[in-house]
């Protein structure tokens, strides 16, 4: 991390093989993301953004090229080493929340700690999970299973789960895709707060107005990076909530 790049992709390719056909999904992406950035990765479906996200999340390995995360090349690691990297350095937030059903919010949040190298007592697990849940505004909801939480609350649980291991980077895959616009704003507000606290966030979205909450927008098309822009007119949660309120009152008039 001598030059401050937390995430560095060097000419990353990913090719899927379906029978005889070779389908290139990512065709040479090079990218640096520094610590503390808030990046939105955009693109139409089939642009390769999901594949790139999987590589960034250490769920998949590039066919060629290098991925250096936090100063270590992770592109050639095996399944188990990648799992350890995911556990220690990456927090995931999914579009459909992916919480364990019939499992309390607290136990959902504890999940990554169960696979951590460092063993904690159940009291420590509980304390840590409750602390993170409180930080995303879910104090008092620790014992509720997902079925008793609203979509926005479920996504907060998922964010808490992503944060519990103090990851280097939080990867969010369409985090507002299943949420109404008001809840989406709230969730983006949480992401912005986290980013203010110095947490690096990479978010996949296809919505321009969600991408506007980020500091930097990347656009992919046909497996390559099409544009890389700093967001000049950033949306803020407070501002958007005001707008929502205004538009509602306009409609009512």
């Amino acid at each position: 991390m001598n030059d401050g790049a937390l995430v560095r992709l060097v000419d990353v390719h990913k090719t899927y093989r379906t029978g005889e056909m070779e389908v290139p999904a990512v065709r040479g992406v090079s990218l640096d993301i520094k610590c503390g950035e808030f990046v939105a990765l955009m693109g139409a479906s089939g642009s390769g953004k999901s594949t790139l996200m999987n590589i960034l999340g250490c769920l998949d390995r590039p066919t060629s090229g290098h991925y250096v995360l936090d100063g270590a090349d992770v592109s050639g690691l095996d399944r188990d080493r990648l799992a350890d990297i995911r556990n220690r350095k990456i927090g995931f937030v999914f579009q459909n929340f992916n919480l364990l059903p019939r499992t309390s919010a607290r136990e959902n949040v504890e999940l990554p700690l169960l696979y951590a190298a460092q063993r904690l007592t159940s009291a420590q697990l509980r304390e840590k999970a409750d602390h993170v849940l409180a930080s995303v505004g879910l104090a008092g909801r620790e014992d509720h299973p997902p079925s008793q939480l609203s979509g926005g609350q479920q996504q907060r649980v998922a964010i808490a789960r992503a944060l519990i291991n103090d990851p280097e980077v939080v990867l969010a895959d369409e985090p507002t895709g299943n949420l109404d616009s008001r809840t989406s704003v709230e969730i983006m507000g949480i992401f912005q707060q986290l980013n203010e606290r110095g947490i690096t966030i990479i978010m996949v979205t296809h919505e321009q107005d969600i991408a506007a909450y980020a500091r930097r927008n990347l656009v992919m098309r046909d497996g390559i990076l099409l544009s890389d822009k700093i967001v000049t007119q950033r949306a803020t949660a407070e501002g958007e909530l005001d707008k929502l309120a205004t538009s509602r009152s306009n409609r009512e008039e």
Partner: protein
Amino acid sequence: MRVGSTFNVAFRALRRNKMRSVLTALGIIIGVGAVIAMVGIGNGAKSQVEAQIASLGQNVILIFSGSTTSSGIRTGWGGAGTLKIEDAEAIRREIPGVVAVSEEVRSITQVAAGNQNWSTQVLGESAEYFDIRQWPLADGAPFTPQDVRSANKVCVVGRTTATQIYGNENPVGQILRIKNVPFVITGVLTPKGLSPQGVDQDDIVIMPYTSAMKRVVGGTTLRGMNVQIGDATEMTAAQQQIIALLRQRHNIRPGRDDDFTVRTQQEIAETATETSKVMTLLLGAIAGVSLVVGGIGIMNIMLVSVTERTREIGVRMAVGAHGSDILTQFLIEAVTLSSVGGVIGIICGIGASQFLAWKFQWPTLISISSIAIAFLFSAAVGIFFGFYPARQAAALDPIEALRYE
């Protein structure tokens, strides 16, 4: 590594699906319960047979006369009179380790007293017979060696015979007419019950063999002998020596068949317990089938569970679970189901066999080893039938698993 938390994870998963866990374990509960109960019944029957065999006496060698092949006709054991009183004396004298010998003759004879009569087995024995068979008297006294030497007209009677002739009266001191010869009853035997072959062992009159030969059975040859050996380790040697001695005394050339048969109580016991052993095995095998069916139930549920929880597996992998963690988790779930089912099954099996023992008066015997084997087997069933689904789960690709609908 992190096995502790994996246990925790597995138990949480089982608790999330209580009904399913209980139903899955039920297959194993029934299987193990059936094995325990069936084997208990089989072993009970076996031990009962063994107890009856043991009532033949300790370290007893039985010698039967016959079978000869003179003129091509073979008689059964005890049929041809080839054993003589002198043979018995020779065995007493020459075979080391012999504690007691009882010469034996027998016949089925009508006995009578007052206006009652009854067909029963009359056994002629020496005075040692009651010690050899460990057959004490319930009342009165046995006949003495002096009675045997003098061929006195005395006898002891079994419980059944006594009841048939005298009803509730005490037969000791009464006169029993056997072939119109009056015998004085000196004692009544303790009841022995049915033999392994189903013969009433108490339907009997025992008298000195000398008296029996002279007044009841006739003839000068013995049907057989009961020989008691002092030390169990000398049984085989004694058996060999008896055969050699009798062959020599009967002038049987090498290569010709014996005109007598020597059996140890051990051999008889083995034959008799063979049937109940087969029975136990058969019952156990049938019950074992239900245990295997229970195992397949576990496998079925685990496979369903892996499919249903594909997303969960994906999430676990995304947050850092290794394939081995997933494998262990599902294995622990399977083994927990099967071994908890095993423990409950053992309790149910013990309960069931106790119930059968109480309700139908069947002897049941549950050994620690059958409990241990049933438990280990049920755990093994969990591992065996849980491994395939667990490996399926561990081999999932996290990306695919997360996307699974």
